[in-house]
Each structure stands twice: as C-alpha cells, then as structure tokens.
C-alpha cells in the first residue's frame, strides 16, 4: 500500500537528503506553547498519570 520509501523519489522540492543530515542551528527561542502555564500543568499531570513522564 505505501509507496516504497527506498524507491520513490522525494515528492517535495524541499525534501532532500541534505535535510536528513543533522542540522546545525544556532541558539533560537523555543516556539511559544499553545498552553498557558496553568494549562501546561493540567496536561503534564495527565501525561504523568498515564506513565508518559
């Protein structure tokens, strides 16, 4: 069903082997969270209860 990954050429112009090499990026700010600090506590507690943290 899936396209064989080893035989199919990349479909996106941006999808190259070079991009699969480890990136070298300088310091940058983390992206802003979708959660407020209070909401983040709620979701972290759920993840802990499920044993994911």
């Amino acid at each position, binding site marked *: *069903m*899936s*396209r064989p*990954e080893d035989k199919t050429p*990349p*479909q*996106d112009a*941006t*999808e190259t082997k070079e*991009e*699969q*090499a*480890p*990136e*070298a*990026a*300088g*310091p*940058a700010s*983390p*992206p802003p*969270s*979708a*959660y407020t600090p209070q*909401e*983040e506590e*709620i*979701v*972290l*507690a*759920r*993840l802990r*209860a*499920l*044993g*994911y*943290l």
Partner: protein
Amino acid sequence: MGIIKRLLSRAHPENKLFVLSLDGVSHTFARRLAASGVMPNLGRLLPQGALAAVDSVLPTVSTVAWASYMTGVNPGKHGIFGLVDRHPNPFSTLIPTSRDIKAPTLWEILGRAGKRVGVINVPLTYPPRKVNGFMVAGFLSPDLAQATFPVELAPRLMEMDYRIEVDISLAHSEPEMFLSELAETMTRRFKAAFQLMSEEPWEFFQLHLTGPDRINHFYWAAWEDGEEEAGRRFEEFYRLLDSYLGELLEQLPAGCPLVLVSDHGFTRTLGVVYINHWLEQNGYLLFGRGKKELKNQHPDSKAYSLIPGRIYINLQGREQTGSVVQGRPYEELREELIHRIGGLSHPETGQALVKKVHRREDIYHGPHVIKAPDLVIEPAPGFDFKANLGVKGLLAPPETSGMHTYEDALFYLGGMRAELPGQGLKLEDVASVLLSVMKIATPPSMDGRPLA
C-alpha cells in the same frame, strides 16, 4: 475489480462516511472480542466488511500515530515525534499540539473539497483548527471551553455534560471510580455524537474513543490472566461500547459505510526500561554541577533520550552543550549505540529488550526529519522505554499492565466481505483510503495510496 471500485459500486447516494476510531483496540483484540461474544454487534459487523491489521508508527505513541492517520504522511512530513518534544538550544521540553502538525489534515482536505465534517475527540486536535463543519478537540485539551470549533459548540456540549477525558490518576488511587468514570465519559461522548449527527449537516463524521486505550493500559494483564472481578469489569466496559456500536449502526444514514480504525496494537507490559540510566552508566550521558536534568548536560555528554526510546546525539552546533562533531564522529556514535542498545537483554531472563534501533533517515522522510530523534528504539514486545533520570537501575517492574505495539492496529471498512490479508497496510495509508471512499483524489504529498 479493485477493492475500492467494488466498494464504490455499492449504492451510497449521499456519499457519507462515519469513522469510529478506537484508541488502543488492536486487530487481534477486536476479533477476539467479536468471537467471544463480548461484543456481539462487532461480531455481526466484522464479516460484512474488509478487515486488516495495520502497522503503526515509530515511536508508537498515540499522538504520533493519530498525526500520521489524520495527515496520511509519515512523521518526517507532519513533524510530530512524541508526546513530549525538545527544543535543542537553549534546551527545553515542550508538548506538541495541533499547531505543530505541518501537513494538512484529512478533514481540512475534505473541507477544501466542499465536504462538511464533524470530528470529535481525536488526539492532537487541540487547539482546534478551523474546519468546514465542527471539531471537538481531544487529548490533550486542557478544558472544553476552548476545545471546540466553532466556539459556540462548547456551551452545547457543556449542557450535555460532555467530558474530554477521564481523570487517569483515579486508576491508581480509586479504581472503582476510574471504571465508573470511563463508562460515563464514553456514554456522554456517544450521546453527544448522536445528537450532533442528527442536528448538524455532515458528510464525514469521526468519533474517537480514548476509553479503550485507558482501560487496556490498566486492566490488560488482569483480563489476560482471567482475574475474575477485574476481568469482568474490563469486559463490562467493552459490552457497553458494543451496545453503543449497535445504536450507532441503527442511526447511521442508509448506505453510509462505517470505518473502524485504531492507532496501535496492545500487549502485556513486562517491564520498564530506563534508557537514560543506561546512557549515564555507560558514559554517554553526563551532567554538569547542580540538578540532574537534561538541560544541564555536561559539555562532554554524548547522547540523551526522550520517552519512549528516542535517542538524541548531543550534536555540536545543534544542542545546547553539543560535543559530538557532525560527520564521521556522529555516524560512529550512532553505529555504536545501535549495536550496544540493540543488544540489551534482561539480566535475569535473557529476553531481548530491543527489537531494533532505527536511524531516523531509515524510518522517516520529508522536510521535518531534521527535528527527529537521531535514533529510535523499537522495543521488544512488552518492554516500555522511559527517559526518567535519577532511577536506580535499567529495569523496573511495569507501571501499567498493558502497553502499545507497533504491529496489529485495526482497520475495518464496512460494506465489503473480502479480507485484506498481507497487504502491508500502514496507518499513514488510511487517510487516502478514506478519501477514495469519499471520491476525492489523494493529494500527491500524501505517503499513502488508495487501495487498488
């Protein structure tokens, strides 16, 4: 005639589709529930459609899996690699949300094709993105008031006493209450779905149930072992689910196919593997003075892990304290870790702890591979890889009684009698199959293809 052509040759005058997604219900488990009589409606349903086992994703966690399902692409294209992710420099951890999904979703593609959609409770849909229809976000939505599109839907759901998620901590502290809440939450979810099915226009409807995954995590071993009371309560939950499945079948519009899909298989947990402990004990993970935490790695640290079994090389120029040079040193370290981690075994039983350690470029492709872990551990069935620091040993007893497996997710397409054996169906294929049923062409950027 091809499978989809045969399906489409049946009369579906309204061209509607209903997906019931069952988090954590494996192909094998569904067949067993159907055959044993625990789920008689499922037992009647399965022979009337095409049923297949589906390969999930690596790492096998729900948000990564559902992101692959909803986009029809591998994580290298949608950019979700775990329940928790990291920003490398300055180091911080973050919880991915719908905003981090870097590919269009199934319902966005359907909406662009003019189809009205209704989506309830699919993981990683918070914050809800705009759709042509309505969306109720699921795991990990912090509260219902902000979890709907349009926002006007939230008060209606509150009137129905709709609940996003059971308080999972009850499973540890008050198991009776946990089971009761699981049943009640599922009941309210179905009732809300039935109401919205009748009140809102839709052509594609997806109702997602998280309860099966939750009860499986905590009751799987008890059920497998035939523990009388716990096993009875476990089956009681699935009997209730089956009664609502029966009601759903009665309420579906004539000719509307029902799809069942899950995100992974399930198995008994045999033990927890603390891989950061192993990395630390073997000199790969080093900490600076002060608190032992990943943001405080020593400049000589070489590798660390995030749950479950994602290994990041402490790469120079990428990580905050990166020490490993790109090129040959990086490749040699990966090779060494693949060999050593791949050979880990249980010190008492000799059981292999690892099925395979994958290089990221071997399992992902696309523009977001650069965010992926450098190595991904595929555990041997039953071994639950965690990333806790400050633990006493590599292995610990299970924290939950059941855990996910890569193989054996469920896919069922109603309206067909043929089975789909051995076709190598992957979770990222499902979206294109569903688009086929809706008579919409698969976008070329999708990894999956419609069934021939």
